[in-house]
Structure formats: structure tokens, C-alpha cells
């Protein structure tokens, strides 16, 4: 049996295949490039806000959510939020607070380009304390080699961030709308500070 396909369709076949091939490449490249070219991703939005807020670094409380005044889309209005935007080129970062074991506190560590490399809640606090050090691979190595020999093992959790820039988003749950103030006070008690590596 012979397929009866006119020659001019067969002539077009390579061009159709080429079109689909290029379409495939364009699709894959555009999806992969999107995180690095998207102008208004979460890091960009938060960086803009933090720069306009009074302290340029450390922990910055986000305004209470209201229609038209949301910092980020798809956030729960029951949360009070604070952010710590960092650049590890200036040094490692320490996030520290104590928790009361009753109220929900969530910490998520975001690299640039939309990846969360660590997340936790107050449930995983150690002895009522959250003490997290964020650094790049070199900084974490330096801290580990400084530990050797002396002193008790560190109580802190050390995270290696995949990118130099990123942010820590801290969410404090207000069980009722009237608890917002309390939830915000819990956020104010958190410190997020850059520190210097030990010498040596």
C-alpha cells in the first residue's frame, strides 16, 4: 500500500519540523529565563520596600495587609509579616529569636529566582530558641573550621545559601484580627543581623 501524499507536502515537512524544533527551544529557554528576567518577583518587590523603609538592613516589618496595599500576592491576611533582605557578599547573617511555643511563627529562606532553600516553624525551635546562621559555602566553611577544638558544639543551625542575594520571610499568625498587634510585636522581637566571621 502506498501513502498518497502530494510532493509539495513532503517538501514542506523539513520546514515544519524546523519550526517545531525552534518553538521547542524558544519555549524551554523562555521558561528557564523567566526567574532571572521577571522584573517584579518577590525579591525585587521586597528590596524596593526595604529601601524605602527606615532601616536599610536588618528586619523590616511589612505593613498590615489591606486591599491595594499588599506587598506580595497570595499572602494570608491572617499573618503579620517581616522580611530580612540580605546580600551575603557583605557577610553572613544571623536570625535569632525565642519562641513561646504557643503561637505560629514561620521562617522561610528564599534564594533569588524563586527557590526556597529552607523553611521551618517555631515547632522546630531548639529549647525555645531559633538561632540560624545563613552564609555562602565559604562563610559556612570558615565557621566550621573556627569551631574545631575548643568550646561546646554550637547551638545554631547553619544554612548554606545557594545565591548571594535573597531574603528571609517571617510570618507570624494572628488567630483573630484583634491579635494583629500581638503578632507584630512577636516579629519585632526577632533580630536579623549581619556579623563578621571570626578571624583566623
Amino acid at each position, binding site marked *: 500500500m502506498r501513502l498518497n501524499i502530494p510532493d509539495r507536502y513532503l517538501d514542506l515537512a523539513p520546514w515544519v519540523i524546523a*519550526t517545531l524544533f525552534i*518553538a521547542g527551544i524558544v519555549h524551554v529557554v523562555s521558561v528557564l529565563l523567566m526567574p532571572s528576567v521577571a522584573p517584579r*518577583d518577590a525579591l525585587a518587590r521586597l528590596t524596593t520596600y526595604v529601601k524605602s523603609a527606615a532601616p536599610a538592613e536588618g528586619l523590616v516589618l511589612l505593613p498590615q495587609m489591606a486591599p491595594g496595599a499588599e506587598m506580595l500576592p497570595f499572602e494570608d491576611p491572617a499573618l503579620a509579616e517581616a522580611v530580612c533582605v540580605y546580600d551575603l557578599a557583605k557577610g553572613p547573617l544571623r536570625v535569632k529569636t525565642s519562641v513561646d511555643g504557643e503561637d505560629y511563627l514561620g521562617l522561610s529562606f528564599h534564594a533569588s529566582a524563586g527557590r526556597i532553600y529552607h523553611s521551618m516553624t517555631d515547632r522546630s525551635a531548639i529549647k525555645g530558641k531559633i538561632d540560624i546562621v545563613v552564609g555562602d559555602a565559604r562563610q559556612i566553611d570558615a565557621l566550621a573550621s573556627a569551631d574545631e577544638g575548643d568550646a561546646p558544639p554550637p547551638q545554631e543551625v547553619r544554612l548554606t545559601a545557594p545565591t548571594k542575594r535573597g531574603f528571609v520571610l517571617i510570618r507570624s*499568625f494572628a488567630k483573630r484580627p484583634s491579635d494583629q498587634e500581638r503578632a507584630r510585636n512577636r516579629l519585632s522581637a526577632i533580630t536579623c543581623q549581619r556579623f563578621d566571621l571570626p578571624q583566623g
Partner: protein
Amino acid sequence: MAPLTASYVSGGSASLDLKPYANYLRAGSVMIAGLIIGLLVTVLSLNAGYGFNSLRAGPWTAWPHTGAADIDPYARAVVARSGEAPLGRDQGLAFIARTDSNGAPLNADCEYRIVDPLPSARYWTIALASPDGRLLANSAERYGYSSVDVLRKEDGDFEIDVAREARPGNWLSPGEARDFVVMLRFYDTSLDIDSSPDPNSFPKIVKLGCA
């Protein structure tokens, strides 16, 4: 005159003139068509959700992998474009409903009732949002309920009415918006994200009627 006429006749139609360039033209249109199709597929796939590995339970859908380091490239592209910061996987889980329990798209001209049950979690919240994730302005300035402040019946069950006009009991209003979505968020949940959840353990969104 005679030779001129002859050359005019032989080169008379445009296709003959372009014949040496036909392959270049085809290559050009292949490039342009490929570019357009490729970008179109990107836009369509990014509008379809947050990539692979979604959890579905009745009208509710969650993408737990958006909250972890193994997020897939499609989800990363969607998250970067919308500017959201997803909930971390170890913090909780956020479900979104764009339809009612019968699969009909949610319409702010209609009234809905969200009813028990709910899977176990330390806290949960149910809130309305616009399809692009903004809060909906409404006269009550109430955007959601939590497991703590929702009013319960004597047996512990609850109902939340979604309507433009005020309702007794738990009431959420989409305000003047035309479309809305319902967000269901769990904080510190033991829900297993590797197996598909039981739809019967999730709240129903029942349409009561339309204006």
C-alpha cells in the same frame, strides 16, 4: 524590443523572481513562526498553574513543591512572574479553589456556602482573594476566618457563607469584584503530600443560588 519582452515574460511572476531567495524566506518564516509558537506555549503553560505535582482534593488544588528546593522550572517561572513568596513545605500547605464542588467557576454574583470537614492542622485559614492573589475590598473589612475565630455550631462544625450582602454567622464578601478564588491554608499540617488526599476530608463549596 523583442529580447526585452522575452525577459519580461520569463521574469514576470514574483515567484520566479524570488526563486533564488525562496529558502531564505522559508527559513525566515520558520524562525518567526517558531518564536511565536514557543512564546505562546510558554504563556499558556504558565497560566495553567504551578507546574507539575499538584495535589487535588475536590475543588482544591495545592502545589507543595513550590515551597521547597526541588521546585520545577515551570513553577519557578510562575512564582517569579507573579511575585509571590510561596509557603515553605515545612511550614504548611496552601490550597486554592477556582470552582465550586460541582466544578462550576466561582462567580461573585452567586452565593456559596463552605462547609466542614477539614483535615487536621495546628491552624487553618479560609480567605477570599482575587484570581491574581489580591485581597478583595469589602464593607465588613473581613478577608478570612481562622480555625480559632470561626463561629462553630454546638457540634463543632462550621459554615462560612460567601455573599455580597451581609449574612448572619460566618460571612465573607467578595465586595464589588466579579471573580474570586477561595484560599485554604494549613499551618503545621500532618497532611501527607506524597499521596493524593481524600476529597471527603476537605470542605465543600456549595452554590446556594445566583443573583
